[in-house]
């Protein structure tokens, strides 16, 4: 399922003294099964942009075409679009509200009018997709779980709607390294197993570099660059000038290069850095 954004502009509070342009002339095409990272400093417009993708916000001008349907046209069923495009907000655990985990995750699919059996199947599948054991957790109150578990339940609530596209706004904020890695692995698995299209909003350049196929860079409400991680992280000066960064190992490679050591600077992960350094060592015959 593709999403095409054409000349999207969004103005907050137009015609008032508080008018501000949040997004300006965005053009972005997201194809079926792609894994995108969306990066930009605080206030660059990331949250505003993703809220357009499932019709929570309407563009001031421009078009959003989802699966061939222009969502601004009259008579478009936005509810259906929201079933196809799942949005996981920042701190999604703040939106948990039911007495039990099972009821909370079931809330979405129930509202879709599915049969009880189908709802239960979906709840099971969604909880298992986020690494939780249905039998063990279904009757517990979501509020007595750990932070990481609460977040997983909240994500399961979105997955139970079986979206084609999953958008996650900083899903790992405040989690410890293990919790962070587990959630990210589960997201990769969702893409692998269901061919889900994923859009991950994150401030962690290390995670983005390691996981996504393509990156979109937002700056002051404009989409200033789209490309593969290697293309995006190649330009460290311009990233740093807009409040972003490159992974720590990439910094290391630049520093080595400055010291006259012949290493590639398009290295993005620890594994790649290791291979590059070992290759150099072997070429020089030290080891």
């Amino acid at each position, binding site marked *: 399922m593709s999403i095409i954004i054409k000349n999207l502009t969004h103005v907050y509070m137009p015609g008032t003294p508080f008018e501000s342009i949040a997004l300006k002339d965005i053009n972005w095409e997201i194809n079926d099964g792609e894994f995108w990272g969306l990066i*930009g*400093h*605080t*206030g660059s417009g990331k949250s505003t942009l993703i809220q357009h993708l499932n019709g929570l916000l309407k563009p001031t001008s421009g078009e959003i075409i989802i699966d061939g349907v222009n969502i601004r046209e009259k008579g478009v069923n936005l509810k259906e679009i929201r079933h196809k495009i799942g949005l996981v907000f920042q701190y999604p655990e703040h939106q948990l509200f039911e007495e039990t985990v099972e009821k909370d995750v079931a809330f979405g699919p129930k509202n879709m009018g599915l049969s009880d059996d189908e709802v239960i199947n979906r709840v099971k599948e969604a909880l298992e997709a986020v690494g939780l054991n249905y039998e063990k957790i279904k009757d517990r109150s979501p509020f007595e779980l*750990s*932070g*990481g578990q609460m977040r997983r339940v909240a994500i399961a609530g979105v997955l139970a709607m079986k979206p084609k596209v999953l958008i996650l706004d900083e899903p790992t*904020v*405040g*989690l*410890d*390294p*293990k*919790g*962070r890695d587990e959630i990210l692995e589960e997201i990769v698995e969702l893409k692998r197993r269901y061919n889900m299209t994923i859009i991950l909003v994150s*401030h962690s*350049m*290390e995670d983005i570099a390691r996981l996504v196929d393509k990156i979109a860079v937002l700056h002051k409400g404009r989409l200033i660059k789209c490309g593969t991680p290697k293309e995006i992280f190649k330009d460290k000066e311009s990233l*740093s000038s807009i*409040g*972003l*960064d490159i*992974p*720590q*190992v990439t*910094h*290391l490679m630049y*520093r*080595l290069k400055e*010291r006259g*050591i012949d290493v590639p600077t398009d290295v993005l992960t*620890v*594994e790649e*850095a*290791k291979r590059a*350094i*070992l290759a*150099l*060592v072997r070429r*020089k015959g*030290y*080891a």
Partner: protein
Amino acid sequence: MAAEIKVENVYFQYSQSKDLALQNINLTIKKGEFVAIIGPNGSGKSTLAKLFNGLYTPTEGEVWVDGLNTKDKDRIWEIRQKAGLVFQNPDNQIVATIVEEDVAFGPENLGLPPEEIRKRVYEALKTVELYEFSQKAPHLLSGGQKQRVAIAGILAMKPDYIILDEPTAMLDPIGRREVNKTIKKLNTEENKTIILITHFMEEAVQADRVLVMEKGNIVMEGSPKDIFSRVERLKEIGLDVPQVTELANGLRAEGLNIRPDILTIEEMVECLCQLL
């Protein structure tokens, strides 16, 4: 009177919980130290932070701040003035609509004369490098700037101890860098004692001492070099090491002659330059 925070045989239990959030914690933090606390979610880090300034008092055991017991209700304001707490979300900590008014909130509540308040606000905003923003509305600032306003608000109370509970969790990379630079400066130039709770191992590396918490206990304690050279143990606890440390470890496993205690890009560059 001892210039330190001392935690003695502390146990802590939340009223609605059966489990102990902290057990048998013994710890001394000397004035001027920079201590980082790391540990998985739910290991008791934030609970401990709130015990340092008497926001919580121990279920069992004592916490002393410069010789004052945090259970002493008559001295609690003195204790909170000595030990200030900065939280994760800057938006929850800002109370005023103008930056300088926000920073003045604490000293105003201390009942200080106006000229003293003005002086403190000026100095605090200068220290966090936001003086030119003193007339701005906080909501127009970036995340890193807002967090520095929150730090300035604490500084204006002239505390000796500043406890920061995941202050950069919600910030973008540049905001994180700004706040880390400010924290380092508070320690080295203003001689503030820093207790930094963080999930970012790169931040813990800049401390003098690192404490590792797991399930309500302090399970490891030492210099960053001691702690982060124990990669396997940290991973077992569910923690991480900086990327360069992981790389150094991987290269050593391949037989390269690399020091086991590399924590920063600089150290890695030096080590590889000698090798290559």
